[in-house]
């Protein structure tokens, strides 16, 4: 079973990387881009057949290690076929 964990800086926390990418996109002429937030995505291959248990486990480990709750939010999701590799 594959679980995706996405980690982003919290709203309100300055994301210098996202800001720089946003500015670069504007220089390339993409004026329609209003804001960019850069984040991380983790693909976890997990044992077991119970999606709810795997998601609960992923939430726990995301809170403990993958994200720093002081500055980051995360979301977990069961990967479906064709999800980002």
């Amino acid at each position, binding site marked *: 079973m594959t679980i995706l964990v996405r980690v982003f*800086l919290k709203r309100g*926390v*300055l994301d*210098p*990387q996202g800001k720089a990418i946003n500015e670069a996109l504007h220089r390339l002429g993409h004026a329609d881009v209003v804001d960019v937030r850069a984040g991380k995505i983790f693909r976890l291959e997990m044992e077991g057949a119970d999606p709810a248990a795997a998601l609960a486990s992923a939430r726990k480990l995301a809170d403990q*290690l*993958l994200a*720093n709750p*002081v*500055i980051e939010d995360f979301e977990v999701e069961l990967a479906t076929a064709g999800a980002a590799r």
Partner: protein
Amino acid sequence: MSGPRVTVVLFPGSNCDEDALIAVRNTIGADARLVRHDERDLKNPDLVILPGGFSYGDYLRSGAMARFSPAMDSVADFAAKGGAVLGICNGFQILCEAGLLPGAMLRNAGLRFVCKDVFLRVETKRTPFTLVLDRGEVLRVPIAHGDGNWTADADTYAQMVAHDQVVFRYVTPKGERAAGANPNGSLEDVAGICNVAGNVVGLMPHPERCSEELLGNTDGAKVFKSFATALLAHRA
């Protein structure tokens, strides 16, 4: 009386460990040793230093992996009993990730790795590392980091101010806060902080790199000499 016993924790990717050992030996006559990240015995120190560097390659977030080292369990126990802990640069990042200090580090606001001298104003005398310094005193100390943009939420910061936990701020050479004086965009120009008890201190600048005449600047030695004085007062 023998000099202070100092343990410097060596993580994979630390690169200021030898500098820290030499600084405490030469400035305060310390009996200093390295303890590896995978050891639990800190060798009965008076002071633990978490040195600068790029522990675990800064993977995930700076300091995030080092926090799970066996040695860090012992450092947390030592700190909980009131032991003095000084985190320099990556050591500061590790202390934040480990929850021994509040807040967290973001990428520098300018996105660049910054390596230069900065000016620090001493904001409190309540830590062992600032005990003999004057409040408002300005030190010139080098920085070298890419993730030194310390931040915390408004409630946390207000609590820290209430508990006098800001130890150093970035200032101009005259000791004034100004936009150009902060090299990384940290909240309220914070350069160094302590825990509520005051025994755990972290700072981004490198006092160990400016502790000898040979290096052209001895301001950093004041931090170590302050600790030695605090220790003598504690032993007396």
